[in-house]
Structure formats: C-alpha cells, structure tokens
C-alpha cells in the first residue's frame, strides 16, 4: 500500500452476548482516501464502523477485544477521553437524524459543546453548510426547525453538523440508503471533494456505489474480513473465491 495508514485495526473481535459479530479483524485504513466496507447485510459492516468511534460499548453485553489505532493511539485505551475520540470522527448514519433544534443550532451544536466562541459561530455555521453544499438552500431560513428540510437536505445538514467539530475521519453508514437518486448523487459528489481533506470510511451494500467512490475496499462476510485491497484490485482481480462470487452477484 502506497499511502500511510490513518486508522489501524489490530485483532479486533466484537461479540454481542455469545454471538460473535466480528472475528479477529486486522486492517490498515489509508489516509485521505475513501475506503468502502462492503458485504451482505448483517455481516458486521456497521459493527466495524461503530467500533471506530466507540459507539458499540453503549449496548448491553457487548465485549470488544483488540486495538483500534488512530494516529498510532489506541482509542480503546482507558486513559483516553471518549469525547475527544468521538470528536475526531464525524458520523453519518443511514437515515438523517437532525437534532431537535433549528438548522443553525444543529451545526452549532458540536462547536458549542467544544467551546467555540459565540462571535465566530455565524461564520462557522456558514462555512460548514457551504462545504456540505446546503448553504444556498437554507441561508434564508436558518432558524427554522431542521425537520422541515427534505430528507436529502437533512442528510447534508447532518454532514455539515459532523464536519463542524473538525473531525479527521468521516464514518458513513450506508449514508444514501434513505435518499432519492438525486440526493444520493449530491452526497457522493461531496465525498469525492471531501476526501482531499478527510479520511472517509463508508459502509455500503450498493456495489456500484463502492465502485464509483472507493479507493480502497474491505470485503466482510459473516464477521470475517475476507479480503481487502485497492478498489481496482478487489473489483477486477479479486483473490478470494468468495469476493469473486459477491462481486459477480452470486452471493449477496
């Protein structure tokens, strides 16, 4: 691999109660690239993504072992402040979940809890709404409740909200699955721009989306990392029989 890794996973295993969700995963995620995690639903893609910002441990009876290193620091080290770890990663979920407040406040929420000065807030909000490609559409109604936006706009608002805490990594969990084709296209276009500044990890079960976006691909099947490598290699010359079958649509 030519690029240096931003996030390194070492022997990560996750189980819910007695069911193993992820089995001994080790992989390096390249810096400032789009990495797609592909695989059939229920195979552990989302679990892996959520392991990266420690959202997993909020569930009951979850046990996690192994390491996840961000910039060579283990995020599961108990000495680390969980809020600082989560601040490094913006999360975009399947469906947009705007916070119960105005458009402006949604974007300002993160900076505010991390102590950004009030007088810079207008500028900050404007900046991130512009990056998320939403500013022109909402600039005249910033103080309306966020739920009045269309679902595609809400997803871009969630993107702006995530970017506003200045993360290094964007974690996206099937971010276009609830959106119409037009809105999906907008989000994908955003990602292509954002990868210049951020490391993006996207979970998707849409193979074509992975082909369009990904620089690097992880194929997961039933909790195991079957194969990973540069997108071109995975799609054109998969080494593993199962990857081949999944890509050809024989298994899904």
């Amino acid at each position, binding site marked *: 691999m030519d690029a240096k890794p931003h996030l390194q996973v070492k022997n990560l295993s996750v189980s819910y109660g007695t069911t193993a969700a992820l089995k001994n995963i080790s992989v390096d995620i390249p810096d400032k690239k789009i990495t797609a995690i592909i695989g059939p639903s229920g195979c552990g893609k989302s679990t892996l993504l959520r392991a990266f910002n420690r959202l997993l441990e909020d569930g*009951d009876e979850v046990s996690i072992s192994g390491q996840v290193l961000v910039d060579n620091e283990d995020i599961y080290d108990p000495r680390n402040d969980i*809020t600082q770890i*989560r*601040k490094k*990663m913006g999360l975009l979920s399947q469906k947009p979940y705007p916070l*119960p*407040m105005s458009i402006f406040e949604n974007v300002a929420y993160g900076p505010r809890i991390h102590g950004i000065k009030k007088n810079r807030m207008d500028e900050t909000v404007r900046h991130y709404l512009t990056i998320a490609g939403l500013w022109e559409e909402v600039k005249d109604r910033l103080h309306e409740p966020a739920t009045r936006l269309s679902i595609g706009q809400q997803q871009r608002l969630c993107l702006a*909200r*995530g970017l506003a805490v200045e993360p290094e990594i964007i974690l996206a969990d099937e971010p276009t699955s609830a959106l119409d084709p037009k809105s999906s296209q907008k989000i994908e276009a955003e990602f292509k721009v954002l990868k210049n500044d951020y490391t993006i990890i996207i979970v998707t079960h849409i193979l074509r989306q992975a082909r369009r976006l990904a620089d690097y691909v992880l194929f997961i099947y039933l909790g195991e990392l079957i194969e990973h490598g540069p997108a071109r290699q995975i799609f054109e010359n998969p080494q593993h029989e199962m990857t081949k079958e999944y890509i050809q649509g024989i298994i899904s």
Partner: protein
Amino acid sequence: MLLITLGSGFLVFLMALGLCVKAWPILRLKSLGEILFSSSWHPLKGDFGMLPFIMGTLWVTGIAIIIAVPISLLTAIYLSEYAPKRMKEFSKPFIDLLAGIPSVIYGVWGILIIVPLVKDHIAPFFGVYSSGYSVLSAGIVLSIMIFPVIIHITMEVFHSIPRELREASLALGATRWQTVKHVLLRKSLPGIVAANVLGFSRAFGETMAVLMVAGNIVKIPLSVFDAGYPLPALIANNYGEMLSIPLYDAALLMSALVLFVVVIFFNVVSRYILHRINLRIS
C-alpha cells in the same frame, strides 16, 4: 358487549350531568365567583365559600408536584440513560408496584412516619411549631404516590426516542449528560409535561391518604406547616352527614363538580399530548 362498552363510556357524561343537576340549587342562588373565591364556609349560616378547600388542594398538590417532578425526572433519566440493564429490570417492577399500593396504606404510613418527621424534625428546624398534620405532610405522601405514574410515563417517552438520535449527539463528542440535556429533554419535553400533568391530576383528586395527614381544618393554609382541608377530603368527610342543612348537599356536590372538571381537563390534555407522541413514532 357493545352496550356495556358504550355504557361505561357514557358513565363519565352521566356523572358530570348528575353532578351538574345536583349542584344546580346552589349555582342558582349564588354566583360562581362567590362559591369559588369566598373564604367564608359556614354551612349553618348559608355561607359556602370554597376558597379554603381549593387553596388546601392547591397547596397539597403544589407541594407534591414540587417534590415529585425533579425526583421522578432524575430517576427516569438515570434508569433509562445511565443504569445498567440489570438495574433497570430490577427496579422497574418495584416502581410500578408503588402505584398499586392502596392509598389508605400510604395514609397510615404518613401518620406513622411523615407526620412525626414534620412535627419533630422539619418544623423545629425552621423554628416553627407544627402538629405535623399539615399540607407539607400531605404533599410528601402524595408525591410518593405519584412517583410511579410520572417515572413510568417519562421512561416510556424516553424509550420512544430513537437510539440514533442519541448517537448523533454522542458521535459529535457530546457527553452523556450534554446529550440528555440538549437532545433528549428537548425532544421529549411535551411527553414529560404530559407525564407530570397526569401525575398532577392524580394528586389533585387523591382523597384517602391526604385526608389522613392534612389536618382538615377549614382555613386557608399560610405556610407549609399549616393544616389544610383539600376538596376531596371535604366531600369524603361530610357527604352523608348533616344533609338536612339547606344547600349543604348542593355545595358538596358543587365542590365535587369542580374537582371533576379539573381532573378530567388535565387528563384529557395529557392523554392528547401522549397520543400525539405515539402517532409521531408510528
């Protein structure tokens, strides 16, 4: 079965109608303002000012709400957001059980524990003398009776909020408390209000336990250590006695009507809000 169902539905209206008819004689002779806002209650002289009772009810209910709201809200927050699953499963049945205890037992417990506590410890602490039979005692007992209602409904409202919304806030690096404060509470505010209003309406109409510890003196309470005489206690203590006094019967039923209208009103409002929340989820 249809008839039975309709019948029980109609019962509410029949009761309202019955109360109106029975209270009519006094409403014809005296203005509503005089009945509700005069503090002179002398049935033998024909004075039926209900203000002392209304104030008694408001004091007791107010104290109960002031004690119950913060405690039950914090309990609900703790149980739904912080407590480990086992703790939650363990304590929920106990809280619900509180709701099932007959109110006379709360009354006895109030006399045995709360009344002496107020008399010997709380009142002297403030340098006041109190017999212990006071609106404070009644408020404390009542607050414990309405805990389960408020906790239960508030927890259900929290439960209706999608996990992803909490995660959205946590993923931005918010602490759990920030998430509760800015997201959870804001999102569930209507539901929390409804839960408390439902608790309030239960407190407003609760009779037995309050009657046993409130002191029942016809006087507007001036402090929490004074005795009070809430409306339900008035009706329960006096209806059926001395009904030969003219208009006494109508006056008591008038007070019942007041109680009825207030409680029904709060119930309908809070159930409407909760219904709207349920619609939003589904």
